[in-house]
């Protein structure tokens, strides 16, 4: 296997391994002795006979710590579970955790440290687009491997990154289709925080609404990050009376947005809203009572009823406390170490080029969200789910789409 030049046969071999996998030829159990370090690590990564170093790079401090803590927990949980199963190619994963401190340059600095000093074999990390954009050149230059968990705006595809969250079209199109059909919605009000992800998402949403749904966008609004005063915006919405508010407000603003919306009389009995930025994590801060009845479009909800998810939720709560909640990104972060394990085992090597080549085509059947497939563009094929929030802070899945292929550079939406 290792004599094959994988770079040249990326697709072929991907299909081949897929076939072998299906035939049960490659199993999850491997022993270090079968894979001598000199063979599986030809590029000087921090891989020994018994261990492999993997970096975790998130914000443990600063404003983003709120969001990124869940991802750190999920990644650590997955790594602990993998180690309990014997590790990767018989090697235990050693975690080197670095703090991005909610500061984009720090992400670049720490990524550099992980790749150049610690020589980690892969990195689970980044959360905001800004932190990823800052760290990306480092990963590309040092040929590192990043598993990135957050749903994001797309418009990016790097051989050094696997995107375990959804890109924008996956999250947006099916959700809009559903709400337009279900609620007979014709007029939409778009509102988001003022940065690249909401703006790109709204651009796609507007095109879809205008060109495919025959609807009308009656207002589009962006709120400065961290702003907590929504009085004027809410009044604008009241004046326009949209059928649906389509929202992508993030961070601290999110809580203020829902609280003030309710206080202004626009609760779910009077107003339909679909958000793409509220997960179980956010609900903790917003409060279920402020959110009850509104919808979120995500690929994962904690309440999903399948065996893999039940096990995941149970393990997560056992590890991180019974009050812990799991949002979409947390689940996507949980996929990272598992996908990495699968990729290394498919490649039979820790070498980054081989691992990159081995992962596309792999179907991860035991993902809590349900089976997902890694595509050649390094994104996942997933389903979209619409959840309706209850007062208890959990969402009821009211709609599940079919499988949606990732399309980070959507034609006709740019």
């Amino acid at each position: 296997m290792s004599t094959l030049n994988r770079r040249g046969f990326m697709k072929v071999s991907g299909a081949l391994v897929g076939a072998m996998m299906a035939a049960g030829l490659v199993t999850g159990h491997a022993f270090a002795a079968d894979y001598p370090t000199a063979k599986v690590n030809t590029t000087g990564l921090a891989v020994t006979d018994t261990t492999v170093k993997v970096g975790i790079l998130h914000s443990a401090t600063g404003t983003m710590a709120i969001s990124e803590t869940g991802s750190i927990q999920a990644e650590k949980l997955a790594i602990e579970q993998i180690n309990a199963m014997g590790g990767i190619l018989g090697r235990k994963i050693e975690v080197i955790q670095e703090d991005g401190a909610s500061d984009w340059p720090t992400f670049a600095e720490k990524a550099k440290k992980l790749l150049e000093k610690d020589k980690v074999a892969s990195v689970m990390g980044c959360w905001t687009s800004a932190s990823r954009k800052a760290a990306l050149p480092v990963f590309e230059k040092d040929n590192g491997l990043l598993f990135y968990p957050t749903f994001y705006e797309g418009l990016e595809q790097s051989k050094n990154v696997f995107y375990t969250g959804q890109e924008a079209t996956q999250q947006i199109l099916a959700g809009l289709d559903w709400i337009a059909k279900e609620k007979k919605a014709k007029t939409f009000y778009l509102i988001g925080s003022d940065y690249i992800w909401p703006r790109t998402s709204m651009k796609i949403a507007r095109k879809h609404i205008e060109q495919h749904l025959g609807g009308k966008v009656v207002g589009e609004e962006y709120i400065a990050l961290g702003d907590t005063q929504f009085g004027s915006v809410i009044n604008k919405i009241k004046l326009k009376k949209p059928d649906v508010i389509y929202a992508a407000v993030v961070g601290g603003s999110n809580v203020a947005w829902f609280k003030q919306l309710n206080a202004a009389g626009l609760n779910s009995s009077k107003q339909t809203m679909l958000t793409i930025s509220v997960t179980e994590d956010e609900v903790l801060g917003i409060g279920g009572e402020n959110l009850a009845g509104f919808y979120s479009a995500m690929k994962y909800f904690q309440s999903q009823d399948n065996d893999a998810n039940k096990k995941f939720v149970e393990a997560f709560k056992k590890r991180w406390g019974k009050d812990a909640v799991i949002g979409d990104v947390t689940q996507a972060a949980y996929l990272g170490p598992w996908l990495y394990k699968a990729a290394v085992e498919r490649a039979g090597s820790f070498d980054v080029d081989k691992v990159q080549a081995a992962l596309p085509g792999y179907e991860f059947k035991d993902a809590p969200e349900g089976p997902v497939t890694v595509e050649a563009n390094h994104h996942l094929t997933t389903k979209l789910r619409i959840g309706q929030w209850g007062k208890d802070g959990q969402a009821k899945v009211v709609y599940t789409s079919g499988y949606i292929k990732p399309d980070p550079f959507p034609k006709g939406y740019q």
Partner: protein
Amino acid sequence: MTLWEKMCASDLLGGKQGVIGLAVLAAVIFLVLPLGVDIFRLNLIGKYLTYAFVAVGLVLLWGHGGILSLGQGIFFGLGGYAMAMFLKLEASDPITTKIQSTPGIPDFMDWNQLTALPWFWEPFKSLPFTIFAVLTIPALFAYIIGYAMFKRRVGGVYFSIITQAVALILSILIVGQQGYTGGVNGMTDLRTMLGWDIRTDSAKYILYYANGLLLFGAIFLSKYVMSSKFGMLLLAMRDKEERVRFSGYDVSNFKIFIFCLAAMMSAVGGAMFTLQVGFMSPSFVGIVPSIEMVIFCAVGGRASLIGAVYGTLLVNYGKTVFSETYPELWLFLMGGLFIAVVMFFPNGIAGIWDKYATKYGWFKDKAVTAKKPEVSTTGVETHAVLTETLSAEAAAATESTDVAASVKKTTRKKAAISSPNIRGAEA
């Protein structure tokens, strides 16, 4: 006279102690660090040294001029952005950006549906213009702010708060106008300068040394300013602004100049930052970085140029080390440092050094120590003026034939002095 004696005698370099200090710093920056650490760490240190430009500017502005700007991030950012605009344009040639709807413009513009390069970006295609812009735009901006404020004698904490507000405005503006600025992501993925790849190790060494030389340039320029009559006037203004004004000087012009000079130095630091780190983001423009840069300067010793460089290195090194090992402790440490420096070591490392250097009789050099400015506790603040006035009055009263009148007069004057007008030294 040997060269050594000549240098030691030079007022510009600050006597024997000054020469030794500079020599040690040069050895540290140009020899010890490049030989002692690997390129990864050296690149980090290069990044810290770009903040030292701001700290050196603050020594002039704050340590010597008594003007505390909480908006130096503005200038660091402007310089950094100007350089980033040039590099971004070079990184956005039509071939690399062919997947965009509009090839040839920076990626973030394309994401924000811009279809042509905005007019103010055009000149940044030229490196000479960019260097010109790095030097002049921040200085011009500082001139406008400085002119408006110093001509109206806004000083003290008012100046600090207003510069802080300006920093906030600029960072909101950059984040809000993302089609033109890259928004909160900043400008990333900068690769080459005139075709020279700035990401390679050799480029990093070269940039590190260039940065070090420029920093020494800034230090020498500052030393020159400080050793001239201007420097003396700056100290004089800090302590007795009225006296300077009534000695025939237009105080505001001096303040505007020093503010512009500090701004220009910060901007050079910003440009060097962009070159060494490979991107620029609004997180260097706002309030938090601006205040952090003040603490670099304060830790080093607000009146000492060399101290400011060490302060910057030390705080940033501490930040990196602590945030790697104990991220939770870092904020405690940083916060504690602010408080401790202000309360117990107002002259920072340089102050501690001086104390022991004097105690053990190292580098005795009288002319210099006499001129070395200490942190003043007079001039700006009401209470000190009050006590001073009072003691003068009391002295006068004992001599005066009319004690009662004098006490009555004291009372009245106090009311005027302790007016809420705590602006500058006017009270």
